[in-house]
């Protein structure tokens, strides 16, 4: 009843092709942004801000990047953690080695370095695909793990092997308190989500999807596989690299290569699967799900009035993750995003289900 588009006529291509063609969606999005930018910083405790919302935002960004590669272009990657690490360490080096480097510039330059590495490791995708590629991207993972641990230059010869950043500020405004960090990440995520959404709607995005659906057929109709695949790798690893830099700089503050281990890669892949392959919105759903699930599982026993050991809890967590992934792949391969759009379809008819 409230979500019906009767009477919303489009009289121009512009109106027909906008991101949110339905007025209610636009209002909802506006409200959501207002809540995110104004209500949340005012009303949410520092703990939530620091431990849940900021990681959620950064992981959403990384999942978004991965989704472009896996969901839109169909090139499976198990090396996301590696590209995050490249972004983080490159940004760190820019920050430390160049005096007066603006924070945003070093984050973006970190992303650019990740792009270079991403394209480099994407080159095999021109010859190999699917399962072989998945293993090839693992090479990136293991190599960067090793490189950032062993090659002193990357960590600016830090004795402990871990690096840290301090005194972050943007145009003189310090990024110190949880609220500032949250807002900083939020701004990044909103801008990148908008860019990504527009990219996948554009010609290049359609090339990626054609490549995903059937690469040989796409090549036959004149899509250059080299260009399509490498741009997907470039865009994806740029976003992932920026997310990695944010993760290191804003969320962790001090980190070592273990922060970007293979587990991180799997975690991001799960976000993409559970959230929805080939959906920008889905990346956020997936990230929210995977960030919140462990919290929920940790709280559940105490709500139900019994306690379990931490070891058992963490095993149960991995089991539930595993089971959920299989469940989603079987029942809803398009993930939470598809559930969301199904719900919207139903709402359009509600309360008359005809």
């Amino acid at each position, binding site marked *: 009843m409230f979500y019906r588009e009767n009477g919303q006529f489009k009289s121009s291509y512009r109106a027909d092709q906008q991101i949110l063609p339905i007025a209610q969606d636009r209002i909802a999005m506006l409200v959501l942004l207002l809540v995110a930018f104004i209500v949340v910083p005012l009303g949410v405790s520092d703990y939530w801000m620091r431990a849940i919302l900021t990681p959620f935002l950064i992981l959403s960004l990384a999942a978004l990047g991965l989704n472009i590669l896996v969901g839109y272009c169909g090139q499976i990657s198990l090396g996301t953690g590696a590209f995050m690490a490249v972004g983080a360490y490159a940004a760190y080096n820019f920050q430390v080695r160049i005096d007066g480097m603006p924070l945003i510039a070093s984050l973006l330059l970190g992303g650019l370095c990740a792009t270079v590495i991403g394209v480099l490791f994407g080159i095999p995708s021109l010859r190999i695909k699917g399962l072989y590629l998945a293993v090839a991207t693992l090479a990136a993972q293991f190599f960067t793990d090793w490189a950032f*641990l062993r090659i002193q230059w990357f960590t600016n010869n830090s004795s402990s092997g871990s690096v840290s950043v301090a005194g972050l500020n943007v145009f003189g405004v310090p990024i110190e308190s949880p609220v500032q960090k949250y807002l900083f990440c939020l701004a990044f995520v909103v801008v990148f989500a908008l860019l990504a959404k527009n990219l996948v709607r554009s010609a290049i995005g359609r090339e990626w999807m054609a490549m995903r659906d059937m690469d040989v057929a796409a090549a036959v109709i004149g899509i250059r596989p080299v260009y399509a695949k490498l741009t997907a790798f470039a865009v994806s690893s740029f976003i992932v690299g920026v997310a990695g830099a944010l993760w290191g700089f804003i969320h962790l503050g001090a980190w070592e290569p273990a922060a970007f281990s293979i587990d991180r890669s799997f975690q991001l892949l799960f976000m993409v699967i559970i959230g929805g392959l080939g959906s920008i919105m889905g990346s956020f759903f997936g990230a929210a799900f995977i960030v919140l699930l462990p919290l929920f599982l940790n709280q559940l026993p105490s709500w139900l009035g019994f306690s379990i050991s931490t070891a058992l809890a963490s095993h149960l967590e991995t089991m539930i993750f595993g089971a959920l992934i299989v469940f989603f792949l079987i029942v809803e391969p398009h993930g939470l995003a598809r559930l969301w759009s199904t719900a919207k379809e139903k709402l359009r008819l509600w309360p008359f289900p005809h």
Partner: protein
Amino acid sequence: MGFFLETLFGGLMVGMLYSLIAIGFVLIYKASGVFNFAQGAMVLFAALAMARFAEWFPLWFGFQSLILANILAFIAAMAVMIVVAWLIERLALSKLVNQEGITLLMATLGIAYFLDGLGQTIFGNDIYKIDVGMPKEPLMVLQGTFEGGLLLSQEDLVAALVSAALVVVLAVFFQKTATGRALRAVADDHQAAQSIGIPLSRIWVIVWSVAGFSALVAGIIWGSKLGVQFSLSLVALKALPVVILGGLTSIPGAIIGGLLIGVGEKLSEIYLGPMLGGGIEIWFAYVLALVFLLVRPQGLFGEKIIDRV
């Protein structure tokens, strides 16, 4: 020279163990077109079951004999792996028939997580030991030829022999038996195999059980070397480049790939490692496989796939 040969042999032995795990991958890929990421988790699960049953049975039934405990534990662990195979087929794979390779790969990732969690929930998460009486003392050979002779680990030799025997058995099974033929048919084309009356679900249970068997053997050998603990499931990550190098569909490829990577890893660690800062074992296999893929995307013995629209 002696040192070089020792390194070489060490590499070959480790490579044989990689092959053992790689064979598990190849088996499942050959017979169901699924790239089984859960092989590592299966190795851990099987090894945990074996280690714990061997510990529990003497307590439950009140006997002392180590051999009897090991035999019973082996049978029980194998039974567990068959049940696992059956459950995987029932609950996951049968519902994903004819899906794309990537979907199936991700499903096995989910299965891997589930098995990791389940194994440690049931069997505990400490370090356990498997004692199947493998000889521990190193063996001195060729003392006349070299200064100081060659030091070989008997344990590794036994492991290599067991792997070799397993490979022969599997090769015969695949090439000579009717079930083996059915397995290969399913691997080529699910739908076609189904349409000529090959029961897909039974074939999948069989092949996952066989993979469970090879996981169990690999788990016992690795477990008696390193102890059974979570890191065992990571050994399987070492087997991935082996499979890629050898070709996903070839058992001989898995063996030769394993040997190549085992040897390459050890030699590179010794001779290149000091120049690059050490610890290059972690990525050497992967980069080797990656470079190789650029030249020959289907691997050493893999089948060339020709795309048609």
